[in-house]
């Protein structure tokens, strides 16, 4: 179960099906990202795909009849219309059309009727309709999926399609479970279930042998775990995303000073960058050591190369040039990234902030924590974004504490120009489940959790910056161990629920997944489980706060009535 491999195989198939010869790949806004996350352009060149164009911004009417045109687009109305136009006066010799999802029959008819030049050679649906981020992580790149805390219809449609395509690309006909209490998760589960039942021909896969449980599609809601995206991260990928933002494998380094010209934007791909693939989940300390080793190795090689005494040596150097170049590129890229990370860690005092964040997330100690938050927020040494995060965490954690002083903190935050209006919005965003269970305020019923916490307390803390465990981790444990799920995660439809744990699990988080959760999934996969995580997007704290703001526009203030003075953004700020 590797989402990157799944997409790569689809794209490979498209290209090989078109046969040998010069090829052009015609894509749309979304599929171009899908392709670029699976293959580098140089790899495509070796597959004889030389030109890349967008169906919606065609370069010219120039005709190149000796080119084969591979069309890979989503089945939207706009794309059908544009493709119809294209087929009516074809610019290329032959067309191989691949839709990234289920296409209505009427649309096929429209296109067939437009193909007067008999130029269409192939017409298929391939289900590569999601962005493969890591082998175990996919995204649909929907930055904001809720409006007034219920689904934005377009986002719902796109999420349904995305999930259906993930299922088809793994040939799964799953049992679908959703988080009880979350209408968003339930709606999506229902939609996916409906599609599966409608497209019975597509989903007619052989059921698993000897009555094993079918794969599980588990739909969760970000509103149930608003803590995870707010914490500072210390593993490489998560850290880069938190501090520098990874956008579809690309990191923009324009703002960073002292970066070489050719590294203003770097690509982080597990497929093309071995160092990155190996250190995705390494923590900050480890990675510093690793880069040192890499540097030494590189320097050794560079020194070897410097000993150029004869022409033969020089030739040798040139002959090993590609690898040399590749290696030097990797070293510099990661060196730049890591040094920038450590600059940020120092400047923002992230060690101190992160420790307090973890404390608030994992331990109940109101008065000490309040004092520490107060000190950090008022001192002004930390950035206002970090101050906001501390206040957010505090406000959620101690919302019902007798001595809760959120308004006092908000005042301090407001005074130093922080975006204090976000806090009430966050309190409206989080779900009832999060309120009741997130900080496991000793519910006697939940004995398992209680003992687990006790054990944790006894064992002490290994790493103060990584105490927090995302909710997903516990959820997955219950799934894997085959504990009864029906109460918290009811099954969609009237299928008989299987008691045995499923062999494959696809988790989808409405409202965005995080790299911390990807790490949790990775750890389970290392133990031999087969889990893939997906989300409407991949969040860092910044993008998550934006999503919360977008989702709570026009929502009446119920839980944060006492914070009325902070309900609106100060004039001049967004």
């Amino acid at each position: 179960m590797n989402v990157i491999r799944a997409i790569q195989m689809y794209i490979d198939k498209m290209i090989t099906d078109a046969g040998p010869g010069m090829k052009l790949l015609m894509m749309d806004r979304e599929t171009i990202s899908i392709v670029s996350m699976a293959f580098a352009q140089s790899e495509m060149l070796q597959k004889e795909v030389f030109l890349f164009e967008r169906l919606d911004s065609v370069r010219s009417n120039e005709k190149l009849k000796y080119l084969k045109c591979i069309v890979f687009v989503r089945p939207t109305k706009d794309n059908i219309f544009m493709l119809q136009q294209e087929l009516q006066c074809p610019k290329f010799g032959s067309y191989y059309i691949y839709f990234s999802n289920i296409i209505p029959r009427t649309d096929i008819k429209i296109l067939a009727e437009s193909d007067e030049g008999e130029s269409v050679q192939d017409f298929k649906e391939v289900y590569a309709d999601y962005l493969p981020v890591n082998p175990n992580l996919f995204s649909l790149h929907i930055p904001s999926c809720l409006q007034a805390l219920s689904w934005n219809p377009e986002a719902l449609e796109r999420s349904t399609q995305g999930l259906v395509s993930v299922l088809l690309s793994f040939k799964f006909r799953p049992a679908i479970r959703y988080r009880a209490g979350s209408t968003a998760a339930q709606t999506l589960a229902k939609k996916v279930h409906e599609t599966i039942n409608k497209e019975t021909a597509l989903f007619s896969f052989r059921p698993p042998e000897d009555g094993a449980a079918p794969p599980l599609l588990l739909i969760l809601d970000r509103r149930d775990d608003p803590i995870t995206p707010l914490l500072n991260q210390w593993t490489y990928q998560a850290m880069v995303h938190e501090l520098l933002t990874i956008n579809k494998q690309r990191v923009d380094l324009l703002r960073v000073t002292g970066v070489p010209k050719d590294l203003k934007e770097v690509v982080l791909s597990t497929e093309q960058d071995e160092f990155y693939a190996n250190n995705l989940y390494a923590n900050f300390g480890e990675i510093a050591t690793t880069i040192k080793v890499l540097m030494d190795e590189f320097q050794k090689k560079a020194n070897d190369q410097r000993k150029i005494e004869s022409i033969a040596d020089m030739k040798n150097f040139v002959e090993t040039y590609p690898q040399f170049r590749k290696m030097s590129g990797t070293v510099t890229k990661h060196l730049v990234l890591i040094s920038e990370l450590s600059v940020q860690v120092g400047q923002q005092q992230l060690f101190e902030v992160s420790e307090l964040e973890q404390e608030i997330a994992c331990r109940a100690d109101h008065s000490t924590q309040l004092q520490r938050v107060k000190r950090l927020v008022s001192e002004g040494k930390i950035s206002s974004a970090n101050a906001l995060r501390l206040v957010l965490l505090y406000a959620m954690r101690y919302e019902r504490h007798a001595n809760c002083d959120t308004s006092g903190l908000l005042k301090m935050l407001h005074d130093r120009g922080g975006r204090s209006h976000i806090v009430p919005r966050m309190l409206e965003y989080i779900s009832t489940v999060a309120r009741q269970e997130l900080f496991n305020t000793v519910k006697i019923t939940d004995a398992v959790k209680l003992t687990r916490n006790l054990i944790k307390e006894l064992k002490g803390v290994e790493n103060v910056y990584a105490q927090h465990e995302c909710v997903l981790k516990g959820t997955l444990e219950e799934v894997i161990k085959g504990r009864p799920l029906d109460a918290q995660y009811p099954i969609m439809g009237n299928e008989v629920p299987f008691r045995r744990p499923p062999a494959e699990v696809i988790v989808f988080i409405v409202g965005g997944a995080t790299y911390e959760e990807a790490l949790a999934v990775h750890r389970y996969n290392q133990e031999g489980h087969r889990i893939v995580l997906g989300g409407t997007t991949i969040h860092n704290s910044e993008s998550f706060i934006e999503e919360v703001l977008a989702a709570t526009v026009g929502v009446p203030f119920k839980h944060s009535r006492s914070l009325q003075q902070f309900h609106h953004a100060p004039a001049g700020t967004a």
Partner: protein
Amino acid sequence: MNCKRVSVHAVNDTMANPFDMHEQESAPSGAFLLPTDSEILEGFLCPICKCDLRTPERLTVHVEHEHSEEQDLLKSLKEIFSIARQGILKGKKRSAAGGPGGPEGTEPSPPRTFGAESGVAIGSAGTANNPLLQPGASQPIGCTCEHMAYFKAVRSPRLERYAAETNKLIIRLDKLLDGLPTEPDQKKRHEQSKVPWIDGKLVKLCPTCAKSFGITRRQHHCRVCGSVMCDSCSRFLTLEEAGRLVNPTVISPTAASAALDGSDTQAAAPPPNESNHFRVCEHCMRLLMVRMEMQDWKRERPLLRQYYEALGRERVGIEPHIGMYRRILESLYEGDVIYRLSDVSTLREKIGRSAEKMDSVSKSLQALPTAPGSREEALKKAIRLGCISYIKEQMLSIPPLPVEEEIKRIQARKRAETERRLERERRLALEAFERLELQAGETADRQTGSSSSSSTASTAEMTNGRYGAAVSTMDNWSGTQTHGPAGGTTSDPLIDQINIVKGYIRQARAALRFDEVATLERNLSELTQEFYYRQRLDTDTKQSEAP
């Protein structure tokens, strides 16, 4: 070893006699020959790093961790173990019933090793076969859904209708062109006689632009379908184009440019007179132009495409050579003598030349004139880029030539090693032979003996094939054997054979067919060994005759 003999046999038909003897005599002793040889490792060996892991579980885990890239290996390993396990379990039951099987010997026999471990194996069989524990297992391609059949079902009737209509128009064009007068009045009469024109009185409005006809807007007839339209809605087909449509095999020099511009230029520059054009309606023009485009496309071979095809041919031609180059280098570094250093350097030169050629072809492809900012220009650049990276990554990055002394050193070491090994084998063989005599009475262990003999024979065969050229393994036997009848004269067909093979090798080398070289070299080494062996026999017999 038996297989080896047979192959020599085939090459050398005339010399059957001594080998038959040889074979019969060596077979029984061969059965006990090699099991204790320290060169042949036993146990649960990792096929990659050759270390003994002692239990199948540890081996599986080891392969999973250390050689995770070798997925098929892991799979086959697991299969073997599960098959072996079943076999052993059955075997155990049977042997338990029938008493202990096989005498106690010093040499460990593989079945017993498996048997000893089977108890452990059963307990953990579940985890070893658990599909969950194979995270990297190859993943099948996802679902796809084919719509081409439906697409064609919708498209075909439409296309057929268009095709029929177009064909009708082309037949009419043919009739029109046949004996077409140049004088305008006569031309018009000729046109009208071939195609029935619609009665103009019945048409009040131009069917295309819906404007009424009158003195200023006169009626015109389409020369191919006979319908009526106004002047501004008329299109014009040049006689030359008409000729091409009727007879597509005739290639006119302007064909390519006309096809590129399409009908746009026709509309933009209306003809000054009607003598060299046919007036046609828009509908007919479109059908005819679509047909013409298709015809042109089939014939069209622009320079860019020709260059690109040349590049592709070059690449297809050189790819096997690159692989061969790497293989030869590997074999050289292993100390084999099948290939020579000169072979790799010729091959390297060829790859270098091919790289240069690809470079120059792609350069001239890039130099083709194209409009700036056009799709074709981008295409040119991309092809060149792809070509450069291919040359860099595939052709220039091949490992450098080895130094001659180094190769010689490696070969010398290899030779020494082989000799040592042979020495040891000979000693062991002798020991085994002695043991055989000791155990002459106990023939009980027939089964174990034959199974190990077949495995050792194949090992010997393998090592022979690999290092065969260095020293003749068959010599070993000469000591323990009685000599067969001598069968060689000076006008030896063997020498002829050797010379012929040498000639073939020269030819294959010259043609850079190194796979053939390798096979022939192996044949040659077998032949020469055979030759030396027989020489020795000769001298032996001479010596024995002499006193």
